[in-house]
């Protein structure tokens, strides 16, 4: 069983007023997400992430291909009892309070009055809006609306949650809250499928990711398989070294960056012995501030993959 499965999912939009010309927003996307996974759906703006989510929610209809959620076609309205969805930059009814909104959505799920009341209270507390539950939504900031959006996506205790840019509009505390929420969902066995272009979030949360560019899947798999986790080098920050002392450190440095007067970031090769370099710095009167191994990040991988895709699809390229 797959939590989410797409096969050659394709979406063309017609652009233009008189002379319609097709624009392919998503091109033959084939993807499987297993139950209980936190799956990151990554890509630059305009890559087709939101289109994919809209196709999965049947807000738009595919030009070709198929999609299933929990082994049911996405068009099956009953499957929506078991899923939650946070759209990108969600908008709600101005005239309602957050509590009224959640109760209204609870009625759409067919929840009884007591459950609606209980879930609305629990979720608004969980997303940090307990104190503002009776405030009209027209008075909410963008970040607060994002939190309401998260709450409504979880109202029915869904088995699969779709989050379109869940960190959008949130301050650092809000982002931490969302990260913790996703991890709690994962611990409860909920499948989380979230789109983002904030790679550090994906790196911290996801077991698997897919990278989309120009409507095409350019890479997908486990983070551990995608990224080389061996050390590529070392980043040593020292303080209190004079420029003369710096030259006395000897050969072997890949790069030296001046951070402030007397403070430098030294990039060492992978085979360097960092303990020896620290001892050398200390002997020359310096003080070690930090030492960090350099590994490939998801950002490095992402930039490489998306860059390669753009080069392939540029006019004049062979592909």
């Amino acid at each position, binding site marked *: 069983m797959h939590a989410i499965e797409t096969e050659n999912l394709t979406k063309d*939009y017609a652009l233009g007023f008189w002379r319609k010309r097709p624009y392919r927003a998503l091109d033959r996307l084939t993807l499987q997400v297993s139950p209980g996974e936190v799956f990151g759906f990554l890509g630059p703006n305009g890559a087709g992430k939101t289109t994919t989510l809209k196709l999965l929610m049947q*807000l*738009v209809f595919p030009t070709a291909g198929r999609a299933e959620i929990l082994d049911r076609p996405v068009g099956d309205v009953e499957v929506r009892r078991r899923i*939650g969805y946070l*759209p990108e930059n969600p*908008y709600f*009814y101005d*005239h309602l309070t957050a509590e009224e909104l959640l109760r209204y959505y609870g009625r759409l799920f067919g929840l009884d009055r007591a459950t609606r009341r209980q879930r609305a209270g629990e979720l608004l507390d969980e997303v940090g809006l307990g104190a503002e539950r009776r405030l009209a939504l027209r008075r909410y900031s963008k970040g607060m609306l994002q939190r309401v959006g998260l709450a409504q996506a979880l109202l029915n205790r869904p088995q699969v949650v779709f989050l379109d840019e869940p960190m959008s509009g949130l301050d650092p505390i809000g982002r931490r809250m969302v990260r913790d929420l996703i991890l709690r969902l994962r611990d409860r066995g909920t499948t989380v499928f979230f789109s983002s272009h904030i790679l550090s979030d994906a790196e911290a949360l996801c077991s698997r990711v897919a990278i989309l560019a120009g409507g095409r899947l350019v890479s997908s798999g486990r983070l551990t398989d995608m990224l080389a986790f061996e050390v590529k080098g070392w980043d040593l920050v020292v303080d209190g070294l004079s420029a003369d002392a710096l030259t006395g450190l000897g050969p072997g440095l890949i790069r030296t960056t001046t951070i402030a007067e007397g403070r430098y970031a030294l990039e060492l090769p992978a085979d360097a012995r960092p303990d020896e370099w620290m001892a050398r710095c200390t002997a020359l009167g310096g003080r070690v501030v930090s030492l960090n191994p350099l590994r490939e990040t998801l950002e490095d991988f992402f930039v490489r993959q998306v860059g390669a895709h753009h080069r392939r699809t540029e006019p004049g390229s062979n592909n």
Partner: protein
Amino acid sequence: MPLLPIALSVFRESVRDKVFYNLLLFAVILVAASLLVGQTTAGQDVKIIKDLGLAATSLFGIFIAVFVGINLVWKEVERRSVYNVLSKPVRRPALVVGKYLGLSLTLLVNVSVMALALYAVLAYMNQGFPESVRQAWDAPALDPALLIAFVLILAQLLMMTAVALFFSTFSSPMLSAVFTFGLYVAGHFNADLKNFETIVSLRPVVWVARALYYVLPNLASLDVKSQVVHGQPVAAGYVSLSLLYAAVYIVMLLGAASLIFARRDLK
């Protein structure tokens, strides 16, 4: 079926958007008119107030039906709140019909309160006249037949709400308003299209006129204000047939609106 929560949500929105403030204006117009009419006319007071009350109910109602109706679906799509609703177990036709029922409830409450207000003003005026004057009226001040006129006005409004909602599923509010008001006006002169062959002999033109007669809402058949005010009887069979016509027209429009909305990409 999630029809009820959707309908109640539309009704609540109408209340919070102060749609019912029009009732205050209606009451002011009625009271002011009753005071004014008493000083300027002789013996026609009650008839004029009935006329004014029914006309104002119709006019205020059509403004609500059109201006709320054209935004019902369009606003949901434009502001993307529809994404949240349709990701729940809600079929698209249920959203369309639920929205329609919500506005219909608003109009029902509006027309009912207006009817009560008119009866209250008429009861007050009724007291001010001696029995001999009352005997000379075409119809009693508190004529129950007024209710027939109110019911048929409501039917007209529900038809026009369906028209506005139909346009709202695929058109902008500005265009929807133009189309709906256009149909409202045309609907009052619909009977002329039926007898077009008496004016024009060209067959294709007559066919087009006849086709338009069946497509456009026949609002004139639902307008019995004049008969009721003048105390002329309105047959029960006529009322039933008119209501049946309105119901069929509404169901067909809601069906078409649901079909269009169900196939639309909500970009």
